[in-house]
């Protein structure tokens, strides 16, 4: 059992709010990822859990035990630092043993635990090396092994992959996912700014937004399973953050409320969006959102000029100039023969639309799932 509960947790540095009113429950064994742009306080939140920083307000419970006043050592957490924080003058073995030696453990227990961690993380043959004699990936694994041998209830990861190169990041991401399955009951809290890590690793994503001195905003922009955040972003910030390339946003006005859905006017063209019309008024200014992968190219009645094409090999990013405006609409296409200045027919399917009111809050969407892979089926 290793449930974590946060109740109204806030953190101020001086007078500057960094985290505000965070309510969160992390279930036992859950893989929870804090994600957000830099300055959103995600690392600070992790340090609050670890006890390296003190909360300014609110309560943190681990396993039903209020830990606000407990020093890090008594919280039964282990942390993997962004810089790995290995002791540079100690061997790999000593690095793992150092945190255990002051505890009253049975004879042979330390060796046993280290042997276990070595097996899980494939550190055989590295035990006598110093950190500087290891590659980045090996150091990373030692840092994780040092956390494992402590057998904590909660693992805290602070951007553990950010110092690795792209290929190693993918590999280590898989290892961490495997580790989470292997360790079963321990909860993991993982901080990253990389939404791919968040989407692929998390049982639950907590997307934090920077307060940037605003007092009205809350830190948690949305919290939920990864696909919920992708399909049902609660607001424009979440919609823009999750998904790569980012969602297209187009200014629009509400034309009429139909059932089910809303008709909106974008520069004289009427588009249907299958979202709840609750609370909307005709004539209201709104923002229409659609993900690049949901823009259909090669069909529909509208035509747009291609202003720029980025060919990535597996697919192309096609920038469309919306008729009558300078706004570019980004679409993904499997075709690699689209030329700049071409006039392309395109369509924005109603069930793929997102609609945000002027305060950024999303209208509820009816369509839970998107039509299967429209970008890839748009062209035969």
């Amino acid at each position: 059992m290793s449930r974590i509960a946060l109740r109204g947790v806030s953190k101020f540095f001086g007078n500057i709010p960094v985290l505000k009113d965070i309510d969160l429950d992390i279930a036992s064994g859950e893989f929870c990822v804090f994600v957000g742009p830099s300055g959103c306080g995600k690392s600070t939140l992790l340090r609050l859990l670890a006890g390296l920083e003190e909360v300014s307000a609110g309560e943190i419970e681990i396993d039903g035990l209020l830990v606000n006043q407990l020093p890090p050592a008594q919280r039964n957490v282990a942390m993997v630092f962004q810089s790995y924080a290995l002791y540079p003058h100690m061997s790999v073995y000593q690095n793992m043993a150092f945190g255990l030696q002051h505890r009253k453990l049975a004879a042979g227990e330390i060796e046993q635990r280290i042997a276990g961690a070595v097996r899980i993380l494939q550190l055989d043959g590295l035990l006598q090396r110093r950190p500087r004699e290891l590659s980045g990936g090996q150091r990373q694994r030692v840092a994780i092994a040092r956390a494992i041998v402590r057998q904590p209830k909660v693992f805290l990861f602070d951007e553990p992959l950010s110092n690795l190169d792209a290929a190693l990041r993918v590999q280590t991401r898989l290892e961490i996912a495997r580790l989470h399955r292997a360790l079963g009951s321990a909860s993991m809290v993982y901080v990253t700014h990389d939404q791919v890590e968040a989407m692929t690793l998390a049982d639950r994503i907590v997307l934090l937004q920077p307060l940037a001195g605003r007092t009205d905003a809350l830190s948690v922009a949305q919290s939920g399973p990864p696909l919920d955040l992708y399909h049902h972003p609660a607001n424009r910030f979440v919609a823009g953050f999750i998904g790569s390339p980012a969602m297209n946003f187009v200014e629009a006005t509400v034309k009429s409320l139909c059932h089910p859905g809303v008709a909106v006017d974008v520069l004289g063209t009427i588009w249907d969006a299958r979202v709840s019309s609750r609370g909307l008024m005709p004539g209201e200014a709104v923002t229409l959102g659609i993900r690049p992968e949901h823009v259909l190219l090669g069909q529909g009645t509208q035509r747009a000029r291609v202003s720029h094409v980025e060919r990535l090999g597996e697919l192309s990013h096609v920038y469309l100039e919306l008729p009558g405006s300078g706004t570019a609409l980004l679409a993904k296409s499997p075709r690699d023969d689209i030329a700049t200045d071409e006039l392309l027919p395109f369509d924005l399917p109603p069930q793929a639309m997102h609609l945000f009111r002027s305060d950024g809050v999303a209208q509820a969407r009816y369509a839970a799932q998107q039509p299967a892979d429209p970008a890839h089926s748009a062209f035969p």
Partner: protein
Amino acid sequence: MPEKVIRSTFSAVPLRGGLAAQRVRRAWWMAAPMLLVLAAVGGWPLLRTIWLSLTDSELSRLDDYAFIGLENYIGEYGLLASADWWQAVANTLLFTGLSVSLETLLGLGVALLLNQPSRLRTLLRAALLVPWAIPTVVSAKMWSWMLHDQFGIVNHQLLALGLIATPLAWTADPQLALFSIVLVDVWKATPYMALLILAALQMVPVDCYEAARVDGVPRWQVFRRVTLPLILPGILVAVVFRTLDALRVFDLIYVMTSNSRDTQSMSVFVREQLIDFGLVGYGSAAASCLFFMVALLSIVAMGLMRKTFERAAA
């Protein structure tokens, strides 16, 4: 023809006019003025001193001297047979050992205190430098007055507190004089040690401490097993610098106790022979001995430091 071009481009030996050769030449030109100055103010006097130490030169007849070989060193009345010289060597070593070890311990303590983040830290760091910034002659004179047996504030306060029954002759009593000198040197040089060690402490990565905190390692263990090994190279450098300084100590001892045999250091001995007794040859021999001792120690220390750094870097 193309083959020739390739060979000259990739040749391991820098060719005349090659980029590497140009850089080496430029480096020599840049270093040349400094090398010249060093040769003039360091090399020449040193060679001249060593030469004079092999003669019977005297201050009163500087131009009229004869070469006498190693007579000044190993002759019947040579340096190595002089009890006063060995007394000076012993004084110097005792002074160096006592003051450097006290300064290291105190400096480490002060550095650890200053390494705690606080608003006062910048101010304290500046204030700390004051004793180091005062010219030694001034602070030696100042302490001489404070330690004065009749009018000094130290005796006055100790008497007032009832810690001593009669005034102590801090700088005149043979039992106390060297101890007083060490005390003043510690007062003066501890800040220097503290700042060098503080610099080493601030190089220790903060997240190592945080990792130890999360792991619940007791503070004493963290200091002994993490902090100390990581700052050891820094401490070693500071100790070597201070030791080389202390071996050459002159002004402090000369101002506080003049030529007293009980506290005379090697440098004070050299000055006495050269100036007071006018024995230029003999004094030069003592100066050369001092130089060889310091040079030997420097070489040993440099080798030791290189080994430590290599171990730390390994």
